[in-house]
């Protein structure tokens, strides 16, 4: 097991190194002059030159890359040009909002995808199966930026059921201000017993989370269906049936048990995918997360910030995959001995 962990961790480090190089190369092809952005419009040339020296942009590219590597290792991810603040502390502020959104979406996706997949596999080829399959393919075919707009139109503007945008009602900041503990608005509100704020944050979370959940829900339903149908003929399942367990237990307990492993791998992959999908949704819902930050960074040619967001998501993605691999290897000796 130790050898397996070491091998997988080394591979993850190698991948992150490659990611840093790729993002660095991409960011240095960006046309435009970040130093001019930093110094402000109509800055005299001497000031732009000073800004360039301060930002280290006058050094040769390999030196900049080496400096960037050194900085990342020591927690210095550079200074964001459009906020004039360290990138890492900016990310610390915006990341929780996006993570909260994605985690809520994945909870919705699992809670709807797993039962739908099981129902579909229970009656394969029947109308309910066709309906679930069509629905799950519809979920993965959804242009979520459009779905976000349509949901706002229907649920907020016409039905007045849910708030249009934002993380909570700004008016509540005067009556019951949100204490900052973890950065996750819902968790902070619950921890401090701030019930009006908790209600507001949850109400604001529903629409964006539903939209982000469309893709993972469809994916999970398809995966569960395929996994269950794959193992439904095996002897231990026949055994469970022969012993007289009701079909509900056969599917929910014995067949689903075998599907959790591939499902965990899929959830890790779709976690990173959904984090990027928030880029399309956050601006529509005015959600103060990574997506809004990335959009602002791209708009201002903010190289350190763009690199920071890309790197952050890539690292989250690599770590999520690594964790799933390790958990699977721990559960299943066949994987670590391969």
């Amino acid at each position, binding site marked *: 097991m130790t050898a397996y962990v070491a091998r997988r961790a080394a*591979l993850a480090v*190698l*991948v*992150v190194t*490659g*990611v840093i190089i*790729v*993002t660095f190369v*991409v*960011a240095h*092809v*960006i*046309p435009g002059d970040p130093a001019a952005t930093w110094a402000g419009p109509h800055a005299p040339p001497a000031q732009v030159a000073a800004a360039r020296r301060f930002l280290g942009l006058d050094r040769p590219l390999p030196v900049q890359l080496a400096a960037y590597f050194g900085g990342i290792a020591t927690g210095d991810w550079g200074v964001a040009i459009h906020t004039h603040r360290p990138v890492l502390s900016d990310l610390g502020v915006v990341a929780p909002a996006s993570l909260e959104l994605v985690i809520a979406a994945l909870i919705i996706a699992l809670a709807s995808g797993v039962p739908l997949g099981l129902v579909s596999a229970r009656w394969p*080829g029947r109308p309910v199966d*066709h309906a679930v*399959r*069509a629905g799950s*393919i*519809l979920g*993965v*075919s*959804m*242009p979520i*930026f*459009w*779905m976000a*707009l*349509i949901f706002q*139109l229907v649920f907020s*503007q016409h039905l007045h059921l849910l708030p249009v945008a934002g993380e909570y009602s700004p008016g509540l900041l005067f009556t019951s201000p949100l204490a900052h503990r973890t950065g996750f608005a819902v968790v902070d509100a619950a921890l401090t017993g701030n019930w009006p704020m908790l209600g507001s944050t949850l109400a604001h979370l529903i629409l964006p989370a539903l939209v982000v959940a469309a893709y993972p829900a469809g*994916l999970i339903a*398809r*995966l569960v269906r*395929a*996994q269950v149908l*794959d193992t439904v003929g095996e002897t231990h399942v026949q055994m469970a049936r022969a012993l007289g367990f009701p079909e509900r237990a056969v599917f929910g307990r014995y067949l689903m048990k075998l599907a959790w492993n*591939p499902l965990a*791998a*899929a959830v890790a*992959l*779709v976690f*990173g*995918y959904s*984090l*990027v*999908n928030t*880029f*399309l949704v956050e601006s*529509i819902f005015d959600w103060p997360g990574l997506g809004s930050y*990335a*959009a602002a960074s*791209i708009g201002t040619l903010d190289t350190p910030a*763009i690199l920071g967001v*890309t790197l952050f*998501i*890539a690292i989250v*993605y*690599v770590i999520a995959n690594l964790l799933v691999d390790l958990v699977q290897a721990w559960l299943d000796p066949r994987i670590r001995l391969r």
Partner: protein
Amino acid sequence: MIDTPPIRPAAVAAPRRAIIGARLRANPLLVAGGAVAALIVVVAVLAPLLAPFPGDAGTATNPFAVLRPPSAQHWFGTDHVGRDIASRVIYGARVSPLIAFFVLLIACLIGIPLGIMAGYFGGWLDDLIMRVTDIFLAFPALLLALALAAVLPPSLTSVTIAISATWWPWYTRLIRGQAASVAGRPYIESCRALGISRRRIIARHVLPNAITPLIVQVSLDVGGVILTASALSFLGLGAQDPTPDWGLMVAEGQNYFTTAWWVVTFPGLAILVTAFAFNLVGDGLRDLLDPRRVILR
């Protein structure tokens, strides 16, 4: 002495056709998706005949018919400069599916040779190619496409390049696995023993036996590429204004959507229907050709 009856090709072909026919009947979703996908292609080809106002898909503007709701004259209403949305949606069928075609073509042209090299030759070449694809696959595809599209000047060509650059590693990995499993089989070894050239072995024996899963994957990916391309256009990184791109039309309608719902609704619906139809086809083809695989992206 055992009497072996001669094998007649027809006797083998007929049951297979019957099996496929039966599977088609058991899979109404594939038939429905195929019909809609075919309809979209027909609409794209016949766009000049079908669109009521072909000029509105180009540079025409009608400042006196701005943001009109759907009517008999304008089925889907008009946009913020008075263009007929139905005409633009119809012409849009020429944009997104074409991007998907080129992206998948480029991804195959890069991915297949690299995958064959890695899988067939193995060794350090295999390690090098697969570590590079690992790095590319460490990004969610949309993230790298976004970063690339942000670097390149906004255009349809940039979108095609950006998505292709993120798509090929999947095909390299897929083909590598197939090629590696084929390369170890006895019939390839006997080819080598017979002195058949490496090139011929790869072209005639390895590739044809490794390609089926790729065909399935490519058909599954058409919808995904269409969605990615329209997302990039929605963010303003793709097609620019007069181009009747569905993603761009949704982005333009976003500013008016509280008062003019139709500007956003119909182009987005076109994206959904197109991606849905091609995904149904891909999913059905996988069931038909390769029922055991489940693909994740």
